[in-house]
């Protein structure tokens, strides 16, 4: 069994490395649309999903606030950098501040917001935690929607015209953003892998599995959860900054209920148990989203008058993945490996998702 597990790990590393080489060669291998629209978006959405998976896999907390955190960074940046000169932007505060300062403030502000939100939610578990984080998401949506000074439902546009000198021109050189997003995604992945191996990360996993026991051992359970939430907010804020550079704009719809659910679907399709699943889920979701629309299948369903056929197909794919493999595409790989080698779920990570406080 140990031998098989080691082989599986090597296979995974090989596949991971091959994927990395492939995306590093990006523009040479993929056409412009694939590189700019599909893969760049995959890296960015993957980072947000990774923050959700981090909380779920290592903290036992399924958070619906990650899109709100992502949006917070985007809106802070958008309000600070845009300018209201003629031909400029028409919504938001249009402060016209230095982009570098704005990025720092966006990341710091969002992390701080995450810590405050995390502290409030840290004593809740299970469905209650889910509901509190859903509330954050709804508050975020209505705040930016109704406080028209900071956005309004039209959102803030033209943000990617204002980037720091070290980042360069995002608008005309789209591969710049491709590599920046790829780099940030790798850093986020490595950072999560590092953090979960630190004493804090190990204690967090203890809190996930046995909060009562950890508490009686003297660990501050709410503090660990708060810090984890703050860290996840920081990760989400990175994706928020990249998102507004990629889209050029941000609007309440980016953090609305649909976007919140979409991110959860990305995480579930990828697999809530392992961080790698974030990017796998994002790729699957985005590819399906892009290509199913113009497919003959959608036309067929339209012709037989099944309304919203495109969403129906996404729903069916989601259902199929969840039924076959509750651990998402990553879990499917685990199962396929087990099936091929005759071992049952070898090397299954100890961090199977379970809402905080729910012991199996």
């Amino acid at each position: 069994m140990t031998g098989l597990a080691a082989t599986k790990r090597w296979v995974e590393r090989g596949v991971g490395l091959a994927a990395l080489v492939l995306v590093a060669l990006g523009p040479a291998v993929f056409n412009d649309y694939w590189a700019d629209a599909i893969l760049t978006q995959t890296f960015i959405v993957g980072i947000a999903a990774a923050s959700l998976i981090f909380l779920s896999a290592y903290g036992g907390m399924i958070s619906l606030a990650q899109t709100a955190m992502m949006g917070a960074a985007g809106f802070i940046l958008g309000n600070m950098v845009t300018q209201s000169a003629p031909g400029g932007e028409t919504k938001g505060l249009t402060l016209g501040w230095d982009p570098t300062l704005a990025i720092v403030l966006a990341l710091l502000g969002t992390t701080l917001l995450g810590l405050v939100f995390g502290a409030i939610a840290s004593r809740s578990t299970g469905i209650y935690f889910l509901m509190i984080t859903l509330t954050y998401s709804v508050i975020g949506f209505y705040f930016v929607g109704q406080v028209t000074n900071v956005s309004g439902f039209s959102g803030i546009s033209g943000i990617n015209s204002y980037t720091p000198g070290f980042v360069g021109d995002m608008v005309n050189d789209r591969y710049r953003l491709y590599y920046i997003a790829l780099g940030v995604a790798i850093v986020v992945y490595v950072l999560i892998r590092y953090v979960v191996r630190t004493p804090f990360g190990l204690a967090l996993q203890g809190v996930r599995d046995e909060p009562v026991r950890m508490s009686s051992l003297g660990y501050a359970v709410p503090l660990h959860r708060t810090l984890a939430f703050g860290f996840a907010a920081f990760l989400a804020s990175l994706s928020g900054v990249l998102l507004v550079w990629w889209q050029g704009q941000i609007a309440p719809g980016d953090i609305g209920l649909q976007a919140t659910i979409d991110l959860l679907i990305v995480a579930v399709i990828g697999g809530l148990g392992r961080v790698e699943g974030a990017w796998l889920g994002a790729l699957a979701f985005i590819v399906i989203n892009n290509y199913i629309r113009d497919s003959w299948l959608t036309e067929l369903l339209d012709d037989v008058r099944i309304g919203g056929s495109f969403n129906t197909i996404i729903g069916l794919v989601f259902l199929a993945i969840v039924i076959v493999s509750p651990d998402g595409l990553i879990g499917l790989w685990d199962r396929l490996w087990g099936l091929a080698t005759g071992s049952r779920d070898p090397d299954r990570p100890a961090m199977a998702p379970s809402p905080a406080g729910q012991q199996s």
Partner: protein
Amino acid sequence: MSRLNRRWKLALPALGVLAIAVFAAASTSLAASAREVRVAIMTDCKGAFGFGYEPDIGGAQAAFAQFAGGKPKNPKKPSAGMTGIKVGNTSVRIVGYGCGDDTVPTAIKETRRLMEQLRADVMIGPLSGDEAVSVANYAKTHPTKTFVIGTAGSQDPTLQIAPKNVFRYHGDGAQWNAGTGEIAYKRLGWRNAAIIMDDYSFGWTSAAGLIADFCAIGGKITKRVFPPLNTTDYASYIQQLPPPDQVDGYFWVVGGTGTAASLKAFEQAFGALKPSQHIGNLFFAFLGADKVVAPKVVGSYVGGFGTGPGLKTKQAKAYEAVVAKHYPGLNGGNYADGFVYNYYNAAWAFVRGLQASGGQLGARLQASMPRTNKSGYEVSDGGLVRLDANRQAVQDQYPLQVVKNADGSIGTAVVGYVPNVNQSFGGLFKKTSPAPGRTQPPCVKKKLPWQGKIKVVKNGVITNQTIR
């Protein structure tokens, strides 16, 4: 569970992935076909204006059928597609239809899908105000692509943002309400009014037209209320309005499913609606409101949609006949709906532009886009819509009134003809002024170009009498 069974289940997602790969390959091979002008039609298929999908596509394609030899695949379902479009020696292909939901994120994703994945050169659309703002910003960074706005009424795309590759052959939401304030002041005797507006780009622009027109002649807006788009319970917003004995009337700019819901909330708070106390923007009479909303407000005046329903001019009848010929019964036979009409004119103008550029795209096409167009409901200047320096239409407008027809049905009648309405409202809106918002524009008395020149329209015929 047997192993065989498990294997079968495992095959499902694998099949899904395979299917996706096939779709990807199929669309790539499509993209690789011979060079031709690629056009995308962007509209909404979901959200508050989702019902505009077929009327919009039908409007645009009716123009392709009439002026570029396009053949509808299915005259009853425009989105089934069109073949054989040819402008001079250039083939035009409709590569896709955008499916927005009146939100910015979807609009920009759909725009990218159409312009980058399906590699469209030209977009006809989008449908709604916020979408047009985001498309205009997208256009700014994609100068080789050309965008002809479908029927979106926000002001920013052609005034504050105004990229050189964005064209709009119809009025914005403010222009569509030109003359309505003057009618309230002169015919209904309003001096003080409150306004309730959807809290987004189109709502603000549409309200801006009513406010500017009403204040210009001497009216006062005493209260502005802004419910968010897609609100379902309007009670708290209605409570913010002054009661009927404190104002002469109310302007309504609440759209989608909100129109009926907001009026109902008003009835619950202040009693039955008195038509002479309420004026709506196009939401009172168009976009499906004719069935639910209009019967409650028979007699009320309504802003327009850049069209003149029932106008008895040769040009208007010719336009209606063209749409009826290619897509009979489109939009329930209501061809005077801006959804059909504005998309029709957008596609027509593009065909003329492509003709003039000899099939060239980018800057050549943009330079060749027509500066005037003989649109159906146009009367001024020999029936020509003119584009201003920002590539925005200067257009005739037609204030309406909700009426009960002889057969008992409820409809609208054109009551006035407002000639040559431009986007600036006599200099009130300009490139350096803030885009319409909750407090923009302020209420100011001003001389508007059309003030005192609005002609009375009776039974679809423009008279020499001015509105008094």
